[in-house]
């Protein structure tokens, strides 16, 4: 590791890190917002469930580099536009979370839903105040997978020349220089771990009724 190079490049690395966070987190939030109503729809209708889960599975099989390249055709953007990355990762996040949200809502015990109904909750109140909160642990488990894989997938965009931590890898390859590559890998892994940890904390904050001892 060449510390001197790192300190000289510090501003640049912070810039790349900022873009990486933006490109990984925006699709996570957008994906969750889109997956919640879709997952609810799949949960409500036994006919829609296999359809949505099937389409999600097909979208998930498309390799990331291919999706990055194909999205400009759909969005009308330029090939270097960071929007393509946000769009592609949003698609992956939705594809992963639709099934998770539907299964989370399915996992809510029938007794709990009936109790809410008996207490006079309307359907939408029961959904927002009872069913979704009870499903939070399952949803956040899916969100953790999406967050960690998004961080790794963003770096693929370096091959198209979109700046983020992956640029350190291509730079290191062109210069035959290990320092940026190792720094990039470490920052990616740390970023993934931080996002993972934040979702665990958020889950605990949203579900104060669960026991404090975590098994795994």
């Amino acid at each position, binding site marked *: 590791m060449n510390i001197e190079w790192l300190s000289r490049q510090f501003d640049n690395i912070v810039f790349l890190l900022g873009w990486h966070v933006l490109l990984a987190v925006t699709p996570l939030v957008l994906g969750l917002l889109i997956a919640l109503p879709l997952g609810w729809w799949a949960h409500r209708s036994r006919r829609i*469930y*296999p*359809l949505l*889960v*099937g*389409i999600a*599975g*097909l979208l998930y*099989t*498309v*390799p*990331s*580099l*291919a*999706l990055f*390249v*194909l999205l400009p*055709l759909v969005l009308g953007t330029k*090939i270097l536009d960071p929007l393509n990355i946000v769009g592609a990762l949003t698609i992956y996040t939705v594809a992963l979370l639709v099934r998770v949200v539907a299964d989370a809502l399915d996992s809510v015990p029938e007794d709990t839903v009936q109790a809410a109904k008996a207490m006079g909750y309307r359907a939408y109140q029961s959904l927002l105040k009872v069913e979704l909160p009870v499903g939070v642990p399952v949803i956040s488990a899916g969100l953790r*997978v999406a967050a*960690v*894989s998004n*961080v*790794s997938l963003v*770096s*693929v965009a*370096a*091959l*198209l*020349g979109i700046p983020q*931590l*992956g640029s*350190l*890898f*291509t730079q*290191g*390859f062109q210069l*035959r220089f*290990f320092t940026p*590559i*190792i720094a*990039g*890998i470490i920052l*990616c*892994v740390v970023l*993934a*771990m931080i996002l*993972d940890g934040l979702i665990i904390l958020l889950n605990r904050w949203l579900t104060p009724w669960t026991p404090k001892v975590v098994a*795994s």
Partner: protein
Amino acid sequence: MNYLFDPAHWTGADGIPNLIGEHLVYSLIALAIAAVIAVPLGIYIGVTGKGVFMIAGLANALRALPSVGLLILLVLLISPAFPSKMGYILPSLIVLVLLAVPPILTNTYAGIRAVDAAAVDAAKGMGFRTMKILTDVQLPCSLPLMLSGVRSALLQIISTATIAAYISLGGLGRLLIDGKAQNDYSQMVAGAVLVALLALFFDQLLAFITRRVVSPGLTRLTVKSAAAADTVKIPATV
């Protein structure tokens, strides 16, 4: 799309059939190596219960590792020792295997664990020896989960083999990387479409194989999910 319909791109060493062939050869070699490592290990951990802690940690840690970074790091480390083509083929294969092992390993382990304990007891009661219980009861029962692990491993491999074109591995990724270098967007789109079709085709092929080889006695329990897999068919993949 013009690129795809130009006959000149369908012949020769850089022709599309050749690139598809290369992509498949690397992918299937990596899948075979990963399966040889992960299936026995998964069976061992599933049957004995030893080393379970390894499973969850391994899968999560490897998902966080950026495959591009890993690929480039290994090329720089390994290629000076191998002046020939092996200088980039070897690191690519290592990364592909590394990414394919966790899904196969975890699913094999989970498959063995999920076998109905009553079925194992019944086999024991009928006088089956340990090895016969494994081959005739536990393995057939865990096959659906094991194959779904193989399926996600193969998708991961096909996707990452595309990226490996950056470090000059052959295959369909060439169209994407060379197209980028030549500012030829239609070549990039052609590569992207072909890679996506290849992935979809193998995904559906493995789904089909799974339906054929899994014992009907097992699928009856999961009629709902089997039906789910049947209802969606994309004509483009056939």
